[in-house]
């Protein structure tokens, strides 16, 4: 990949961008699905090339310790999910839940969505970031409403309105940042460029930054799914096609959080502004606790795991809020692990709902008996997501809880309470899903479980052993996050 004559960033962005247009023209859904996977695979390869040869920072694009692994993660999960999606969509067409014309649209939007996420991650410019996040919102709205059922449209609508307002507020925050930076850095692009801002931000007056961060937090926080801004998330996850739920939870939430964290870095680097930590801690804890209790009354399996995503986003936000090298490390690790695990869970859920023909928790029983691979995959995924060893989330939760308790004992109590309450809810549902006398169809699953297994293996390995470079990136970013 070093041989590539152009900046790999352009390749990474161009591939999904072109694929989005290209796929809109492919009529055959079988071929489209393969091409979709191919494009995602190529994007993954291209993104891996970043590791060997990290490109220079340009005014528009930036590759640093923070986003390099997120880009790879995004490309990886979108690739594996595209593999799952291929067989999933196939089955949906077979049972005539989807019309082929929508599928064409779906694949195109899938790539467009990948493009916007990668753009958001790679952007060196606040404006580009904002535009990318908005694009991601629009593409996912379309995919969530794909089934055209009243519930799907309702969910898409809710998603759209709430995130639209969120996006608008985030833009206001972005404008405020520019306004704050302008006296120091003058007008024009540099005052909206991360790399430039990071160097000069300490000279910027903190007052406007505070105001800006409030808008950023509420704006992008809506997209992260922080309580009380979370309302769109469960429905959007539950009503769209399952591959989309997987990428929403696994990737989009990360991207939105990434945006918040970039701004937090600015706040940290400024040094005189209000500490953003307490705000993030409060919102994080609120999300964690709210989602934890919400889990108990869920009847829809996808909504259940969507709430679990809110819970984990809460934990991650809390981790970054409390800050310090250990908590930040834990937060970064948790982000990575959560996106791998949650997408694996959604894949398992997708397989299960396809074979059982229902999304209701009470109608799915004994999966480990009827479908051992799906069942045990779901078991492993849920055990991982609730933070049991030997999976990676245990590692991050261990670091987070111990360091929180040592530093802010009173905050650790709601944190642990939330984790334990959520644990109770998820295990309760897991037991009824995976064990007991099986119900429903015993026919083997049509779709591929390979991506799920791959994700789970990665999460398992990460729980036991973390590669050295990853640790170094995390530690470097943790320092920047303060």
């Amino acid at each position, binding site marked *: 990949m070093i041989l590539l004559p152009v900046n790999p960033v352009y390749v990474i962005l161009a591939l999904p961008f072109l694929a989005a247009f290209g796929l809109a023209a492919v009529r055959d859904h079988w071929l489209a699905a393969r091409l979709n996977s191919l494009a995602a695979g190529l994007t993954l390869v291209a993104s891996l090339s970043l590791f060997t040869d990290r490109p220079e920072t340009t005014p528009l694009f930036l590759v640093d310790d923070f986003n390099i692994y997120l880009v790879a993660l995004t490309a990886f999960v979108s690739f594996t999910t595209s593999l799952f999606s291929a067989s999933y969509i196939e089955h949906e067409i077979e049972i005539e839940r989807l019309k082929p014309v929508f599928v064409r649209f779906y694949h195109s939007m899938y790539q467009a969505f990948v493009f916007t996420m990668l753009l958001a991650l790679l952007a060196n410019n606040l404006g580009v970031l904002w535009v990318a996040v908005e694009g991601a919102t629009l593409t996912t709205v379309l995919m969530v409403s794909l089934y055209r059922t009243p519930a799907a449209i309702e969910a898409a609508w809710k998603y759209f309105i709430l995130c639209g307002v969120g996006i608008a507020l985030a833009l206001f925050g972005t404008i405020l940042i520019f306004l704050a930076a302008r006296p120091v850095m003058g007008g024009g692009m540099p005052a909206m460029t991360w790399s430039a801002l990071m160097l000069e931000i300490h000279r910027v007056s903190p007052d406007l930054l505070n105001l800006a961060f409030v808008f950023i937090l509420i704006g992008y926080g809506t997209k992260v799914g922080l309580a009380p801004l979370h309302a769109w998330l469960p429905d959007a996850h539950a009503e769209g096609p399952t591959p989309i739920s997987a990428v929403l939870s696994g990737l989009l939430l990360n991207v939105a959080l990434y945006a918040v964290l970039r701004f937090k870095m600015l706040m940290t680097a400024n040094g005189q502004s*209000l500490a953003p930590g307490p705000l993030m801690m409060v919102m994080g804890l609120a999300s964690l606790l709210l989602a934890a209790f919400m889990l*108990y009354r869920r009847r829809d399996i996808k909504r259940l795991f969507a709430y679990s995503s809110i819970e984990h986003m809460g934990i991650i936000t809390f981790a970054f809020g409390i800050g310090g090298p250990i908590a930040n490390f834990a937060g970064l690790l948790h982000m990575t692990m959560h996106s791998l695990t949650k997408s694996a869970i959604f894949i398992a859920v997708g397989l299960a709902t396809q074979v059982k023909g229902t999304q209701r928790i009470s109608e799915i029983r004994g999966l480990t008996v009827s479908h051992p691979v799906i069942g045990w995959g779901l078991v492993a995924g849920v055990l991982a997501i609730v933070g049991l060893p030997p999976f990676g989330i245990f590692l991050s939760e261990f670091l987070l809880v111990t360091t929180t308790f040592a530093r802010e004992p009173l905050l650790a109590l709601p944190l642990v309470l939330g984790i334990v309450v959520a644990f109770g809810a998820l295990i309760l549902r897991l037991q009824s899903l995976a064990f007991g006398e099986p119900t429903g169809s015993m026919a083997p699953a049509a779709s591929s479980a390979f991506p799920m297994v791959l994700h789970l293996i990665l999460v398992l390995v990460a729980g036991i052993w973390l590669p050295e470079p990853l640790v170094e990136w995390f530690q470097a970013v943790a320092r920047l996050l303060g």
Partner: protein
Amino acid sequence: MAFISLCILAMLVLATVGAARPWFSHAHEVVHAGMALTCGAAAVAVLARLAANDSGVETLTLPIGLPWLHANLRLDALSAIFLLAVNLGGCLAAVFGWSYARHDAEPGRVLPVFPLFIAAMNLVLVADDAFVFLAAWEFMSLSSWLLVLATHREDETRRAAYVYLVMASFGTACLLLGFGILAGASGDYGFAAIRAHQLEPVPASFAVLLVLLGAGSKAGLVPLHVWLPLAHPAAPSHISALMSGVMTKVAIYGLMRVLFDLIGQPLWWWGAVLAVIGAVTAVVGVLHALMQDDIKKLLAYSTVENIGVIVIGLGLALVFKASGVPALAALAMTAAMLHVLNHSLFKSILFFSAGSILTATGERDLNQLGGLIHRMPATALFCLIGAAAISSLPPLNGFVAEWMLFQAVLNGPLLEQWELKIGFAVIGALLALSTALAAACFVRFYGIAFLGRARSARAEQAREVDPVMLTAIAVPAVLCLVIGVLPKLAISLIEPVNRLSVGEGMFDAGGHGGWVWLAPASAFGNSYSGFMMFMTILILTILAVYMIHRYASNRVRRSIPWGCGFTDPAPLGQYSASSFAQPIRRVFVSQLFGARDIVDMPAPGETRPARFELELRDPAWDWLFTPVVKLVGWIADKVDHLQFLTIRRYLTLMFLALVTLLVLVAVSQ
């Protein structure tokens, strides 16, 4: 150390073999034989180490786990004694499982997890940093949860498994917080760093409280015991034996590692609290055990009792250590450690016997059993030894630990604090009560299950189990006897632990009597000799038998039972399990547990049978768990409304959040 690590590795390999069962027809044999060998080898290795009185420490660091800490493993005397218990139990369970687990309905659910479970327990014991410790700890819960779910098709099992895993993770959360305090803000989770980190009394006490909650919930201390009698019996019997006999010990190890090693100099009241909790646990546990009709549940509750006894020992040791009398601390510690070994032995016997009964009759309900001594004579003999040992009868091993514990209690007057002096008397009384009740409990267990006449057709047609299973029962039974007769053998293994945990061995201050007498100086020259007692009884019995058969009549005539002239043909007319427990229930339990007899006597002329039902309540459920469950449900109901709002209201929430934050900013400027 390297050897133990290799053993753990071998167990992991065996787990993969177990997972490959669908493709590998001999997986069952390989896993069980492999586990028996591996555990056996590990047990022998630590036994050799302990027998050599080796107080040294071996460490090993593996490049996994937390990146800046790595996985630190360490083997010292404390780890070694528990490794002995774990691997001995594991080895026996593997042997028993060889035959027993063939009858499993879904063997694929047990085979891969069984080695993982034992590996996790081993790993807890050799962990030398908080991360490895907690990861292994939680993994131990996780794997045993899967084992409990082996019979997942029963609703009861799933409920038990659920309660179990939630309690376990609650415990882990407490431990996590506890280690958070111990490690301090620096975040150095290595045990060496924690040892060096001196805590103020208040945070140290909080750490102790949290560890007590965490390890206590795993060990089954009252009132956190409710999961135990649900979960342990639900697993296959050899796993039940492991969970009851061994896993609870690992929890005890966790408690000890923190209280006697990591935290430094203890405060006296920690020990007092521990001992009181232990005493209450012992009594409550055994009373529950007495009321159970399900043999495995009975045994599980008896585990609660024995854990209580061990914790009493630990509490006393802690008190003595804090009060600066290490010799007495060593006495109490020896008692506790010996009981740890003992309990893993006789609980293995008893659970294996229960497994054998289950195999032979398919019944777990005492009221369906009876007369098995005729049809399963070997099982009956070994089980009798187990029952006598757990009832602390001389000259068996249970009594030795009990004796030392009483000797430690009797030294209470030496202490300064008057709370302790009186407290020790009360603890002694409770300990004595629990011992006596345990004897009653096991008379009931053994008498109803093995003696009398068969109460059901299945008990009537029972067959003795195969020699492999019998071997697994016989070995611990023999060990029970050997330790009981020659307790010094086992006690010499405990001496390094004493030096490590309380700073002095039990016989360091002298004492007399060689290997025959047990007379530590700290017991004021009081002495006991299992050997003499055993030999005397043996000789006297032989003498009596000889004399009587030589000089008196030796004629025997078989006849129908006399029964005061009332010979009831129906075996159901025998004393049943609940009628046996009735006097004790009336005296002890009625007020405490709200036990109620419900007798439904038909009016004269009606042909339906009279019914008797017993309603038992556990105050821990009523007062602790049900309110928590209700509270969570209530909150869940309340917040659930948030799922059903309109978009406008969600926007309002967002607006309010924004305005609140803006006001905050405005105010803070």
